[in-house]
């Protein structure tokens, strides 16, 4: 009969109106600036540099300025200058470090290719999205001090991925240690022979953190 559909519609809106006062499922709005919706773990917006230690972020960057990400970046928003000297990394081994590492976030398109290609797990995607500034040139060009964030932050935004990365790094470290030990033993066994297989320092890019004591 004419009108029954209208009454049904009125009932629907009335239920929603009353329900919005006591039923969370009917009142789904999150009042944004005060309350923030939980982001999914895979959300990605702008890369950041992982540092091992929150107290000394510049000293413990995982990045060794290999410049793969700079070369791979499709919109070319990454700029890296290698250091002239070497500094010990988190594991105490001497490494080149990025003297300048800058990302132009006005150019970055969040493709995550820099993360995919990094052999050192040094660059990861962040969860930030409130980066509005009054100056679109200098303030959107993030330098390494702004980009460096501790591993604990990485754990806080992506617990699963961070745990997996940590486990892999630890396993690699252990394997490298054992290899070094074996190499040392072999060296000790072949003491009189001239030093043949000892180019330990130059490392292939696919192999993370070389062994340390």
């Amino acid at each position, binding site marked *: *009969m*004419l009108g029954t559909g*209208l009454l049904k519609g009125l009932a629907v809106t009335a239920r*929603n109106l009353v329900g919005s006062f006591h039923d969370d499922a*009917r009142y789904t709005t999150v009042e944004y600036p005060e309350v923030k919706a939980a982001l999914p773990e895979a959300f990605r917006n702008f890369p950041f540099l992982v540092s091992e230690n929150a107290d000394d972020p510049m000293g413990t960057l995982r990045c060794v300025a290999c410049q793969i990400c700079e070369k791979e970046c499709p919109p070319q928003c990454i700029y890296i200058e290698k250091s002239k000297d070497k500094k010990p990394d988190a594991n105490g081994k001497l490494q080149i470090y990025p003297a300048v590492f800058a990302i132009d976030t006005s150019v970055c398109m969040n493709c995550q290719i820099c993360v995919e290609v990094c052999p050192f797990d040094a660059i990861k995607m962040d969860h930030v999205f409130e980066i509005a500034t009054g100056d679109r040139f200098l303030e959107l060009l993030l330098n390494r001090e702004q980009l460096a964030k501790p591993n604990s932050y990485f754990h806080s935004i992506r617990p699963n991925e961070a745990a997996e990365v940590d486990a892999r790094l630890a396993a690699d470290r252990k394997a490298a240690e054992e290899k070094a030990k074996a190499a040392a033993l072999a060296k000790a066994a072949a003491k009189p022979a001239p030093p043949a297989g000892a180019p330990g320092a130059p490392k292939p890019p696919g192999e993370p953190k070389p062994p340390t004591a």
Partner: protein
Amino acid sequence: MNGAAPIPDRLLERAPQMLRDALTGFLPEPWRWLVNAVIAMVLILAVFGLLFAALTLAERKILGRVQNRPGPNRTGPFGLLQPIADGIKTLTKEDIVPRDADHLLHFLAPVILLASAILAFAVIPYGRRLVAVDMDASILYFFAVGATTELAIFMAGWSSHNKYSLLAAMRALAQLISYELPLLLSWLPVVMLSGTLSATGVVAAQGSWKAGWFPAWNVFTPWGFAGFVIFMVAALAESNRSPFDLPEAESELIAGHLTEYSGCKYVLFFMAEYFGMTALSGMAVTLFLGGWQAPLPSLEFIPSYVWFAVKLIALLLGFIWIRATFPRLRIDQLTRFAWKFLVPLALVNLGTAAFWSLSAAWPGPLQLVRLAVAVLLVAGPFVLLGRRLSAGLAPRTYAYAP
């Protein structure tokens, strides 16, 4: 005003009158009349101005809740200062008049619209003693003044020199004139049975109690219920409210006749829309819901103007509820609904009311027959006409493309 009031006059009932007399009692006669009239005007403007502000907030809040969001909540506690913020914003905006517009008509349109909306408030009885102008033909006056809005809307559309405005104005004319007819036909039975065109007289005619407790409001009779529903549907269309807001259909006509209006004049249009809605609701309360009468004899200790306010606000919330629910009609659906459904129903309703009036003296058990026949006279045409109206249109079936 309404001398033959059987209910004891309590203090609160007489308070507005006493207050006014205390203020103007010392004046000589012609001056006293003038000052009293000015006081009534100022009161109506103040009360309904504030109601307009409260209504805009309530509407946005309720629409928000219906749509799973909180509505305005940034200005003041719970967004209570939102109407003030809106007012400041719109009043400080630039008033832009198109170069090719007819400047005089462009200026006059909102003024006439608002004036006609405010004039309608003069004859509504807000309480037992609260009516600004008590005329013999006040209902006729009310609807005559209300018809002026059509002229004002067409003025707005024509003078803007804008194709959207003009299209909207033509639509508005088609819509408002179409719905003027069911609107007028729906309250005719009330006048027939009350035997008066005076709003206070109509309210007084609904003042008795059936069986000592059941209010004799028109809406509780079969013809009165049908008349009330037709009246409210036509009132929705007359006040350009959703789902009949075709004249300002944003998605089709930008903002219709409001396209070329900005700032203060734009607000005047909105004010007139809400005033018109309020006035029509007030008239619906007067004609069908017993005006300021209490719903039960035991509740008569509450002042009459409170009852009027309660009924008025209930109807206004109904308007908002309907706006929150229904999508806009198409123009052909709109006019077809008026001419093929509401007008025939209203005409049949005249006959129902005549039957109800003539059979009033039927003895005892025949009263049940009377009720059954009247209900049949209301429901039968509704079902038959409704079936014809939606024949071939519903229920819709959808098929995927092969």
